[in-house]
């Protein structure tokens, strides 16, 4: 039997039977009927003589309509098959029950409080839950597909719009209300009512005022002051220029006294980089460097992420959030990305004991653009 014969047999007739409203099929194969593509398989080359003869014969029964779906569809389905399906569904539901019991058992029997135990508990609880839910789902799906007769019913759909009379009546009632209340006739009432609601709507917004202080000029300054020591972030120890054993690294520093103050650090965090003599170039402010050590704000001028990546070979500072790239030896000017300004430079000097200290605050606001920045 050739492929052509088979597929064409399953084609049109099948679709016809499937879609007749109200008709139902034996639910033997859930996906078995009606899914074949319309297009018969193309035969490449010459069909064998026997097949070819078959193809040339007039349609077998003359009607052309092939009852691919047996007409017995409306008879009571095969009870043995149904029984088997029932048992499968029940098995899934039982499995789900066992899994839920297993879930409770795993909860009771598997303590947590150490990492391996936590992960084992997660695995056990999760597996039990997964099996419980999925077997419930599988059981229900098989139930619908195998035990419920397949139906394809039709329900009339009325247009959404009501009848013209109803619409007319509504409009009359609505306008009558407008007249009776005087809402249409007495504009003073109408207009003062509308006017009264406007400040009422503003009130909830005004109520939000005390959510926070006014910004004032607080975004323009950081806590850096003249003579404030730079502490290495993490160890919180002051640092001397000689402590840089080799040029090229990037050290995060915080102002002395504010090492645990996230609000202060969100603006004041800075990075130190030491260069070889002669590498630093304009527009770096040379007066603010100490022994080829330069300090920049660590807060990106784009949207405020910490610029934490430093590429030693190219001497680029990179913000990992949106890849703004700053040229470290040239005043941290922007060479790529969405940041609009160089990282502000922190004026550096040393104190009497030789530790690195700030010579003052940044001379411009750090971090992202804001309206009042100017």
């Amino acid at each position: 039997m050739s492929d052509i014969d088979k597929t064409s047999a399953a084609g049109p007739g099948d679709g016809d039977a499937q879609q007749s409203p109200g008709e139902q099929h034996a639910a033997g194969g859930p996906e078995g009927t009606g899914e074949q593509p319309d297009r018969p398989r193309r035969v490449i080359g010459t069909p064998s003589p026997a097949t070819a003869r078959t193809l040339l014969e007039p349609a077998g029964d003359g009607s052309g309509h092939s009852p691919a779906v047996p007409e017995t569809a409306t008879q009571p389905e095969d009870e043995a098959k149904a029984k088997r399906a029932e048992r499968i569904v029940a098995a899934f539901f039982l499995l789900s029950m066992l899994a839920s019991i297993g879930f409770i058992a795993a909860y009771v029997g598997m303590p947590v409080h150490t990492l391996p135990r936590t992960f084992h508990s997660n695995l056990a609880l999760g597996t039990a839950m997964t099996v419980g839910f999925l077997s419930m789902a599988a059981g229900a799906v098989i139930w619908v597909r195998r035990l419920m007769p397949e139906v394809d019913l039709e329900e009339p759909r009325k247009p959404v719009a009501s009848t013209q009379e109803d619409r007319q009546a509504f409009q009359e009632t609505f306008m009558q209300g407008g007249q009776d209340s005087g809402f249409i006739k007495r504009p003073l009432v109408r207009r003062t009512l509308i006017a009264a609601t406007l400040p009422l709507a503003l009130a909830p917004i005004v109520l939000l005022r005390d959510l926070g202080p006014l910004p004032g000029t607080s975004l323009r300054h950081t806590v850096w002051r003249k003579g404030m020591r730079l502490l290495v972030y993490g160890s919180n120890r002051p640092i001397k220029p000689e402590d840089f054993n080799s040029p090229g690294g990037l050290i995060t520093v915080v102002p002395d006294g504010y090492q645990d103050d996230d609000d202060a650090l969100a603006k004041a965090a800075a990075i130190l980089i030491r260069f070889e003599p002669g590498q630093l170039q304009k527009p770096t402010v040379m007066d603010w460097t100490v022994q080829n050590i330069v300090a920049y704000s660590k807060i990106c001028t784009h949207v405020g992420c910490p610029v934490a990546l430093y590429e030693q070979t190219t001497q680029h500072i990179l913000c990992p959030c949106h890849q703004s790239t700053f040229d470290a030896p040239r005043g941290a000017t922007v060479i790529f990305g969405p940041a609009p300004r160089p990282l502000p430079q922190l004026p550096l000097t040393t104190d009497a004991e030789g530790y690195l200290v700030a010579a003052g605050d940044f001379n411009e606001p750090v971090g992202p653009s804001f309206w009042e920045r100017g």
Partner: protein
Amino acid sequence: MSSQDGQAAATQAAPPKALVDVGGFLDDRFRGARGVRTFLKKIFPDHWTFLLGEIALYSFIILLLSGTFLALFFQPSMTDVVYHGTYTRLDGVRMSEAYASTLNISFDVRGGLLMRQIHHWAADLFMAAIMAHMLRIFFTGAYRKPRDVNWLIGIVLFTLGMLEGLFGYSLPDDLLSGTGLRILEGVILGIPIVGTYISFFLFGGQFPGHDIIPRLYVIHVLLIPGLILGLVAAHLFIMFHQKHTQMPGKGRTEKNVVGAPMYPYFMAKTGAFFFFVFGVLALMSTVAQVNPIWLYGPYNPLSISAGSQPDFYMGFLEGTLRVSPSWTWDLAGHTVAWNVLVPALVPLGLIFTGAALWPFIERWATGDYAEHNVNDRPRNAPTRTAIGMATVAFYGIMLLEGANDLIADHLDIPLYTITWIARFAVFLGPAIAYFATKRICLGLQRKDRELLEHGLETGIIRQMPNGEFIEVHRPVSEEKRAVLLSAQAPLPLPPAGTTDENGIPIPATSGLAGRLRAAANRVITESIPVNGGNGHGNGHAGGHGNGHAALGDGQAEHAPVGAAPRGPGPAGADGDDAEPGPSGDA
């Protein structure tokens, strides 16, 4: 119907006693017999894409359940504590109570880690399902009147879902999400005039402050879920009231619904589907780690990790921020941060505003104010489908750009090259997608028309008595034919400057608005009508006509060609060598 009843009678079993008088109980109290019965018999059309919205709904229910559990243990507080708990690698580390309690949920509450992961995965699935659902609605034209209001509700739900997700994953106060909040602050600061004020009021002062977590918490667990719940209820009620759309097919019209009744079919199926969604989420949460906040560490404004990506539904905004050039203006002593404002507002604003306005733009341009209950096949609305694909391309390119560092790392492409490609692709990609999609749609429409006019190529070559070879065509099935004929050629409006019979310009086509509308109409109605080739079959070379199904008036003419022209066919000479019928020798 009758046969079904017959079978039902044949297999009736005695019902359990408790169920015998349910109807009586309900009716005695709520007069429900009639209304509830109508409800139970309501017909639900079936198509796999109709499940996408259900996935979103069930994800939302799972979010409510798992979120309630998490809220029993979570401390939305930014008070500093020093951690001494199960996760010893963070022992002695200063962190917020929010972060510490999230660690406790993960390691010290049985099932806590599972619930956290289910909650997070469900949020991702919720957003993914909403996106897929919206694409389905758009591409099939299911948003058309009377469902345009429900489409708008859907767009609001999508926006709320994004915010809800952003606020939710920020709550644990870990390094990754804290960085996200820092970016949020930076973007808010960029808003002209009021930006700094909004930022200070949101964060209770300077970033990070001590207020943001409890504030996000109440928004996340009360305000937005309440809004979502209300809008979901409205969304479902409207859908229920208006009845579902249905896919085109035989016997499906604008005036009916074909499918299976609510009870028991849809209830059983949708119940199974709920368990399926929950089961898959449980499986993912068991085997696939998500948001391991203990690896990120607590937030502090000095630290960051490479490869900081938000959840996928925020990735689009991450991409637009990354792709932006560094434009800012100094305007009379003020800074206008175009480099932040434009990427944060314009691209997503274009998508949302465009999506919200589209039903009304399409209606205006086509003049089609009718009610639509049978969905379009995407190919049959080439311009709409092309605009949809252009949007998908736009969104996809920005989503990829949001992961440009990961792409650079894994594919070994220079980082800046990717961003430069994205800067061009964001304009070229949607344009290419538009034109390619439109061509593909028109091509598919031509193919459809050919199928209707000529039938299927069977690959069978037959020799005619006069020696000529022809290929046998078989007409398409009735089901297929109904689908093909569902294409509605839009009616073109009169071109710009049209005058009526008295030579007066028609107002709708004159002036700038009229010309604009005529132009939009020309673009939107570009389509290949399916029934443009009447009587086509006879036009071919001798004898060939038999291989075709001549398209009549769009109805009825569907008898298999092999059988029909047994009488005097269009080309009588070959009346008896008809194509083998579909039954062959089955």
